[in-house]
């Protein structure tokens, strides 16, 4: 009996890995030839994306993804880490018990709802007060910042709670205030865990598609500032997949390959940090 179960489990394990491997293989098989054909450097760093004329340069999308992600991190990380510090160290138990699940609930809101709110409410505000088309890097960064909050807050709280209580005691016993203790001992001790949370959030920001399509404006140009419209790697695939054939279709798969490396790289860094002990 045990043997059969272990065989079944083995089958399940291998098949799930195999499925993932096959998907990866398929994406590579579809995407790599066009990268070779137009030249890797041309593909990655070309400024012109004109699929109908056979020009496939995805540099504007890489820049777009990086800008939006960086913006989301600049807005979201300080907010998320401060929130985690408050909930883990300062807030009364009662508050933490209400606020932590509430923040986790944010993760349950579908991204299309975030995008819709961004289009209806945030983009007009930006257009009126700051200028530009409204649908912009800034708008997308704001929305993504909120979308990555649950990840950052959740992982950071766990990292802070994992810091041994003896550090805190030792610091307070030396006459440090609570804040000094947090700043000088607890945060440095929790640093690797918090960083892992930030990188996971970053992965989410890079991979997010629906909300970004809705509010980033999708212009295929390299942006000059935060108020310009941009298109991200994910958006590029989703927008053009309906009518892409031939080389164009392959170029979209190649965009997927680039995304694949982006996110795999981020996850590997996150894994490395989260495994590091203090």
């Amino acid at each position, binding site marked *: 009996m045990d043997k059969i179960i272990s065989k079944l489990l083995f089958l399940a394990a291998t098949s799930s890995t195999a499925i993932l491997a096959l998907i990866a293989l398929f994406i590579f098989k579809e995407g790599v030839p066009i990268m070779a054909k137009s030249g890797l450097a041309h593909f990655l760093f070309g400024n012109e994306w004109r699929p109908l004329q056979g020009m496939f340069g995805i540099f504007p999308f890489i820049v777009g993804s990086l800008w939006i992600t960086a913006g989301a991190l600049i807005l979201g990380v300080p907010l998320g880490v401060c929130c985690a510090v408050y909930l883990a160290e300062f807030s009364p138990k009662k508050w933490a018990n209400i606020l932590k699940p509430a923040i986790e609930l944010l993760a349950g809101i579908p991204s299309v709802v975030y995008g819709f709110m961004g289009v209806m409410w945030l983009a007009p505000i930006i257009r009126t007060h700051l200028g530009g088309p409204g649908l912009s890097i800034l708008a997308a960064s704001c929305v993504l910042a909120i979308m990555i909050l649950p990840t950052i807050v959740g992982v950071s709280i766990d990292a802070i709670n994992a810091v041994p209580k*003896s*550090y805190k005691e030792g*610091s307070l*016993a030396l*006459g440090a205030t609570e804040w000094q203790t947090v700043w*000088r001992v607890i945060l440095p001790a929790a640093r690797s865990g918090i960083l892992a949370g930030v990188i996971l959030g970053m992965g989410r920001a890079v991979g997010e598609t629906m909300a970004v399509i809705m509010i980033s404006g999708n212009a295929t140009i390299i942006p000059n500032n935060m108020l310009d419209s941009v298109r991200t790697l994910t958006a590029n695939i989703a927008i053009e997949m309906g009518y892409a054939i031939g080389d164009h279709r392959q170029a979209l798969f190649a965009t997927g390959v680039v995304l694949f490396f982006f996110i795999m790289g981020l996850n590997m860094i996150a894994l490395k940090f989260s495994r590091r002990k*203090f």
Partner: protein
Amino acid sequence: MTNALTAKKLDLYYGDFHALKNVNLAIAPKKITALIGPSGCGKSTLLRVFNRMNELIAGVKITGEVKIFGRTMNKINLLELRKSVGMVFQRPNPFPLTIYDNVIYGLRIHGISKKDILDETAFTSLTSVGLWNDLKDRLKENALKLSGEQQQRLCIARLIALKSDILLMDEPCSALDPIATARIEELMQDLKENYTIVIVTHNMQQAARVSEECGFMLLGELVEFGNTDRIFTAPSDKRTEDYITGRYG
């Protein structure tokens, strides 16, 4: 000479639990005073009264009067109090920072940032705990790489850097092996020239070896307090005698 620490009619409650019962004692400066007693007798709690660490626990109520060098404890600013009454914990708890940053942690949090003062203090503090020669080239390494004994010495150096007057030691050797224990005890003998040391220990031999004065606690009461030699040879209370002769504990 003013006593380093005095407690009068000290009572402490954890919620409904009466953890310290009418404790009265006077601890002389520049001596080693040991508090002994079975687990749960309140000796650590008593120690933690003197730097107000009990107050981190919710639901603690303390009544009575405690004085530090003649000054009423509650009138001293909490952060100043903890600066002058330092504590060494059962498990060495260096911060996950460099050795250097650990030693001067206390100075930094109390607003001293001049590099030459910090360097000078790191040198004198590490020297006085006997670590300087071993570690002078490793100051930028993480303190968690040190051995248990070195970590505990480092924790003592942190207090010396702050110029604490009183060192409270809560079973400082219980996580160390016998050789390291002997060397920390030696260090305590050196330090009492300049510091008042109060040590809590469940190890009676240790109390007999290192301390000049000794208090025996049982169930939250300070049963007997006095000269260590006398307590160990001619205790005046039957309960002390029973504990020392190993009838319980």
